[in-house]
């Protein structure tokens, strides 16, 4: 058994062990900590599987926004958790156990009957990379070969933010999402929130830029930018913009909007919806990605900030 195999076994054992602990532990808060840690370890597995793009997404979302969202929610749940303590009845428990066992068995069966070798479009995606002059096959698939999916994904993000905003009471509509945060201006958090965002913005833009030829892209970069924005908000250095702000709404629709315009132009002047002329493919894709990173950063940040809660000046 080679050293590499031993390493893989150790990695799998650690991740599985942490996963089981997360399920078994009774307290919500501990389980949340375990789950966030588990997500970061899964990034190691993605790197081991050569799926660096996925690892980068896992690190950017799980390490930043996801952790803040889950831990914040768990902390708030614990402060108001007296009602949920009465245990479910035995019938419910048995049903849940049967359902879980069936799901696990189905998944195991599905894995066992997978065809070998698995059907793949990877060679086709790699051999057609010339069409966009981008070297990262993942970006090619996301932005060109399956651009429709990515565009609709951005529309889904937009729908999500509308969904969150619709939870606002009438009196707060048009106001700022989330509470106004406060922290000691000489404290550790404010110090970090002054120091880290400039570095983070450079890293976010770098991840977007390198996404053309290496792992990276607009979503990962946008998640990093959103995390930096959220840090400034949580330290009280910045406030969320009011949802009635025209500039904010322009940023929110910029990504899907530009995508749609380019798509329709492809329909009118090119061969099909979302077809890029090969000579201009790279500049067009980069322009869409720049618009998308702004949309993604704003949307993810606002999704975490929550529904509008207070009017300007409150």
């Amino acid at each position: 058994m080679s050293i590499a195999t031993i390493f893989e076994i150790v990695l799998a054992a650690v991740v599985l062990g942490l996963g089981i602990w997360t399920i078994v532990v009774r307290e919500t808060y501990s389980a949340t900590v375990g789950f966030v840690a588990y997500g970061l370890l899964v990034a190691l597995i993605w790197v081991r599987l050569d799926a660096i793009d996925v690892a980068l997404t896992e690190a950017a979302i799980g390490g930043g926004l996801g952790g803040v969202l889950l831990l914040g929610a768990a902390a708030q749940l614990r402060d108001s958790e007296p009602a949920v303590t009465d245990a479910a009845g035995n019938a419910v428990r048995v049903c849940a156990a049967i359902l879980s066992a069936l799901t696990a068995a189905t998944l195991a069966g599905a894995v066992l009957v997978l065809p070998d070798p698995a059907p793949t479009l990877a060679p086709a995606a790699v051999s057609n990379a010339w069409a966009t002059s981008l070297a990262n096959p993942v970006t090619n698939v996301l932005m060109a070969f399956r651009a429709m999916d990515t565009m609709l994904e951005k529309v889904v993000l937009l729908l999500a933010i509308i969904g969150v905003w619709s939870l606002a009471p009438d009196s707060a509509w048009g106001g700022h999402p989330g509470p106004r945060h406060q922290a000691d201006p000489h404290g550790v958090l404010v110090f970090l929130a002054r120091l880290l965002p400039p570095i983070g913005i450079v890293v976010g833009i770098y991840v977007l830029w390198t996404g053309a030829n290496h792992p990276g892209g607009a979503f990962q970069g946008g998640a990093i930018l959103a995390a930096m924005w959220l840090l400034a908000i949580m330290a009280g250095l910045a406030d969320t913009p009011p949802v009635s702000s025209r500039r904010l709404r322009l940023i929110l629709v910029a990504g899907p909007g530009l995508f749609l315009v380019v798509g329709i132009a492809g329909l009118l002047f090119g061969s099909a919806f979302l077809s890029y002329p090969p000579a201009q493919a790279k500049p067009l894709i980069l322009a869409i990605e720049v618009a998308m990173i702004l949309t993604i950063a704003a949307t993810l940040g606002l999704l975490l900030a929550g529904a509008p809660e207070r009017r300007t000046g409150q």
Partner: protein
Amino acid sequence: MSLLGDIITIVAVSAGAFFFLAGTVGLLRFPDTLTRLHALTKADNLGLGLVVLGLLPQAASLRDGFKLVSIWLLGLLAGATVSQLIARAARQGESAR
């Protein structure tokens, strides 16, 4: 890949692994939250720094080297900040009890 570079890598990464060992021993043996926090944020960051130092000779380009060094600096910043924040929260939890 030069012989000298390889020697630096082996020495520094071994030393880094030793400090990770020290940090984990500290976590297992120290009695309370604050001392364990100390073991974690100091020893592990030293270990990370030594691993980064050891990987510098293996870096493919100058840019990768810069990224390695900035990862360590960010790690130091995170360790210092996190230890302050968690220690204050832990102490506050104690005094509230």
